C-alpha cells in the first residue's frame, strides 16, 4: 500500500514543487476567466471581431476587410466564418462585435432577447429599401421600435434551370402551374429527369418544394402571424392551424417529388450540384447559393432561374426571398464606434452592390442597380415588384425538427400525420416558451 515511504530528507522542496505546480495551474486558468469584457485596443488600434455566416465568401470578405483597414488604419478586423461559435460566444458573454446572419426565426429570437444594438439612427439605415427592411422588422423588434439588423444581401430563390436543356427540348420558361407540369412531362417523355432531387439532405426538401409551394399557394407571413397570436391555445381544428391551411400544398409536393430521378432518396446536396451541373436534369429546386457550386462543377453550364408558378394565374407567382445576410452589432460590444464605422463601410453602395452583383443576390439599397447576372435575371421582376415571401420553414423555431418531418412526409406520403405533427410541435413549443 505505501508505495512511497515518507521522505524525511527534503519535505520542503517537494512541497514547494507541488505549490509551484498548483500556482502555475491556477495561472493557466485565470486568463480564460479574464477575457471578454475589456475593450480590445492596443497601441491605438481597435480590433473588431466580425462573424459572417457564409463560408463560401470568406475570401471575398478578406479583400473587403483589407480595403477597409487601408482606409481606417486605427481598426483591425478579424473575420470568423464559423457561425456555430455565435451562441457559445453569447453564453460566455463574449460575442463578436459585428455579426452577419441569415435573418429568420433563430435570429429573430436573438433580437427579441436584446442581443443586438439599435441601429435605427445609423446613417446607413436610411439608404435601405423599406420593403427589404420590413422583411427584418416583420419578425418583431426589440422594445417595439429598435432596428436590430440592417439587410446586406437579399437572396431570391426559385427554380434553377439548365438553359441548354430547355432550348434543346424547345421548352419555354413556364408561367403557370399547368405549363410547369406540361414541361416536366415533356422532359420525362424525352428521357430527361425533370427535377433533380436531393432528398437525403432533408433541408433541400424544406427550402425547395415545401417553401415554394407553401409560399405560392398561401399568405405565409399572414398565416404565421395569426398562428403566433394564437399561442399555445392552438388546436388541429382551429382555422389557424397547419391542418386547416396547408392541405392543398401537400399533393403538389408529392407531384414534384415524383418528377425527380430514381434514387433521389440517397442523393445529397453535393451529389445534386455535381449531377445537375453535368446536365443530368432540366431543373433544380435550389437557391442562388447553389449557382457558384454549379459553375464550379462545370464552368460551361448555362443557368437561369424563375419563380415556381404554383397557380394558373401568372400574377400570383412569387419568389422565395430571404435576407441572406443582415448586419448587426452586438449590444454590449466595447468597440461600438469602430463597429459602426465598419457597418457604414459595408453598407456603402460601392461595397454592398458589388457584393450582391458578384454573389448572385439582390442589393437591399433603395437605389440599387438592375441585376445583370443572367443566372438570376428571371427572378428580378418579382423582386423589383415586391412579389415575394419568406420561406415557411424559416418561421419555425429551430427546436422543431421540421426538415425531418418534411422528409418523412415525402417518403411516407402521410399528409394528415405530417400536418398534425406540425400542429403538435408548434403547440408544445408555444406552451414551453410562453411560460
Amino acid at each position, binding site marked *: 500500500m505505501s*508505495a512511497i515511504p515518507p521522505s524525511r530528507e527534503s519535505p520542503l522542496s517537494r512541497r514547494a514543487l507541488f505549490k509551484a505546480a498548483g500556482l502555475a495551474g491556477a495561472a493557466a486558468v485565470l486568463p480564460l476567466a479574464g477575457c471578454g469584457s475589456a475593450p480590445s485596443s492596443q497601441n491605438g488600434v481597435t480590433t473588431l471581431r466580425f462573424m459572417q455566416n457564409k463560408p463560401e465568401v470568406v475570401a471575398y470578405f478578406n479583400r473587403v476587410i483589407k480595403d477597409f483597414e487601408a482606409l481606417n488604419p486605427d481598426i483591425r478586423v478579424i473575420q470568423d466564418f464559423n457561425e456555430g461559435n455565435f451562441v457559445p460566444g453569447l453564453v460566455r458573454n463574449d460575442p463578436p462585435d459585428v455579426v452577419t446572419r441569415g435573418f429568420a426565426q433563430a435570429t429573430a429570437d436573438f433580437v427579441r432577447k436584446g442581443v443586438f444594438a439599435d441601429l435605427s439612427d445609423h446613417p446607413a439605415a436610411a439608404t435601405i429599401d423599406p420593403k427589404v427592411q420590413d422583411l427584418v422588422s416583420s419578425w418583431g423588434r426589440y422594445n417595439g421600435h429598435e432596428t436590430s439588423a440592417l439587410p446586406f444581401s437579399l437572396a431570391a430563390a426559385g427554380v434553377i434551370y439548365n438553359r441548354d436543356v430547355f432550348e434543346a427540348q424547345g421548352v419555354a420558361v413556364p408561367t403557370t402551374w399547368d405549363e410547369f407540369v406540361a414541361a416536366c412531362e415533356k422532359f420525362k417523355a424525352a428521357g430527361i429527369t425533370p427535377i433533380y432531387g436531393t432528398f437525403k439532405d432533408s433541408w433541400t426538401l424544406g427550402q425547395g418544394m415545401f417553401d415554394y409551394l407553401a409560399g405560392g399557394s398561401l399568405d405565409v407571413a399572414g398565416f404565421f402571424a395569426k398562428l403566433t397570436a394564437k399561442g399555445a391555445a392552438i388546436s388541429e381544428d382551429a382555422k389557424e392551424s397547419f391542418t386547416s391551411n396547408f392541405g392543398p400544398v401537400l399533393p403538389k409536393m408529392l407531384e414534384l417529388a415524383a418528377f425527380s430521378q430514381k434514387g433521389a432518396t440517397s442523393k445529397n446536396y453535393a451529389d445534386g450540384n455535381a449531377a445537375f451541373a453535368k446536365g443530368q436534369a432540366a431543373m433544380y429546386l435550389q437557391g442562388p447559393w447553389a449557382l457558384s457550386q454549379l459553375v464550379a462543377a462545370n464552368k460551361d453550364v448555362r443557368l437561369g432561374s424563375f419563380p415556381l408558378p404554383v397557380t394558373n394565374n401568372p400574377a400570383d407567382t412569387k419568389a422565395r426571398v430571404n435576407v441572406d445576410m443582415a448586419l448587426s452589432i452586438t449590444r454590449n460590444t466595447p468597440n461600438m464606434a469602430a463597429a459602426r464605422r465598419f457597418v457604414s463601410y459595408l453598407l456603402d453602395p460601392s461595397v454592398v452592390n458589388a457584393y450582391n452583383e458578384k454573389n448572385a443576390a439582390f442589393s437591399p439599397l433603395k437605389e440599387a442597380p438592375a441585376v445583370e447576372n443572367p443566372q438570376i435575371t428571371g427572378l428580378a421582376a418579382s423582386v423589383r415588384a415586391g412579389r415575394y415571401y419568406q420561406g415557411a420553414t424559416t418561421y419555425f423555431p429551430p427546436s422543431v425538427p421540421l426538415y425531418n418531418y418534411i422528409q418523412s412526409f415525402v417518403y411516407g406520403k402521410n399528409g394528415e400525420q405530417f400536418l398534425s405533427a406540425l400542429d403538435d410541435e408548434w403547440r408544445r413549443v408555444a406552451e414551453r416558451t410562453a411560460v
Partner: protein
Amino acid sequence: MTTTSETAQAAPPAASTVPPKTPRRSVRAKGRIDPAYYWMVVPVLALFAFFITLPALVGVFFSLTNYAGYGDWKFIGLSNYVNIFKDPAILQSYIFTFVFALTTTVVVNIVALAIALGLNAKIKWRTGIRTVFFIPMVLSALVVSFVFNYLFSNTLPVLADRFGVTPLATSILANENYAWLAIVLVTVWQAAPGATIIYLAGLQSVPAEVYEAADLDGAGSFRQFRSLTLPLILGYLVINVILGFKGFLGTYEIIVGLTGGGPGMATQSVAMRIFSGFTGGDYSYQMANAVIYFLITLLISVIQLRLIQRRGVSL
C-alpha cells in the same frame, strides 16, 4: 487491493506491502497520512468537480427555468419535466435508443465472442489476423460512419442494381423502417473489436487442462463451449454487456455520420435530442431531458453493479 496476506508474508521486507508488525514507523501507526496521497487525489477531484460536477449542477438548475442559453430567463418550476412526458417525439427517441442499445449489445457480444473463439484457436497467421480484426477500433467512429454512409448510399445500390437485388437498390439509409439496422451494423463493426479483446483475455485465462479433461470425458466442442468456456468466462461476458449497453445508450456520432437522425424522425437518439437543445434555443427543456436520462442511466448502472457484485466480478 489484490495483495493477500500470503504474498505479503512471502515478499521480502522491501516489497510494497506494509508488514503488520515491523518496528519501522508505519504511516498509519503515526496517525497521519502522507500528503502525497492528497496531492494525487485533490487536484483530480477539484478538476472533476469544476468541469463535470459543477456544470451538471448548473444544468439541473437551468432545467427549472426557461433559459435559452443566453438572454433573459425566469423560474418555471417543473413544467419542463411535465412537458417532456407529453412530447411524443422525445418518447420516440427513448424507444429508439433503448431498442438500439439492446439489439447492438446482443449482436456485438455474439460477434465478438465468435471472433474471440476463432482468434484464440490455433489457426494460421493468428497474429496477423488479430491485427486486422482490431483495426476498426483505432478508427474514429465519425470517419467510419461517413465511409459507410458513402457505401450504403452509392456503392451498395449500384451493385444491387447490377445484380438485380431490388430490395437493396435504394439506400437502406433512406428507409425509415430499416435505417436503424444500418446504424446497428456500423456500430457493431466499430465496437466488436473492443469486446473481442476482453473475451480473448477471458479465454486465455481458462486453463488448458479443463479442456483436456473434457476431451477425455468425450465432450464435443459445442458441449465444451456450453459447459466449460461459457461458465468460465461469464464474468467477462457480464463486463462486456454492461460496458457495451452503457456506451450504446449514449450513441451519437455514428448516427450523425450515417443518417443525421433521419430519414424523418426514425433514428433520433436521446443524446442527439439533448444536444439539439443547445443550438435550438431549447436549452432548459433539453436540460430537463438530460436530467431524466441521467436518472434512468443511473438506475440502470445501480442494477448492473448489483448484478456484478452478485457474480463476484470486479471492474
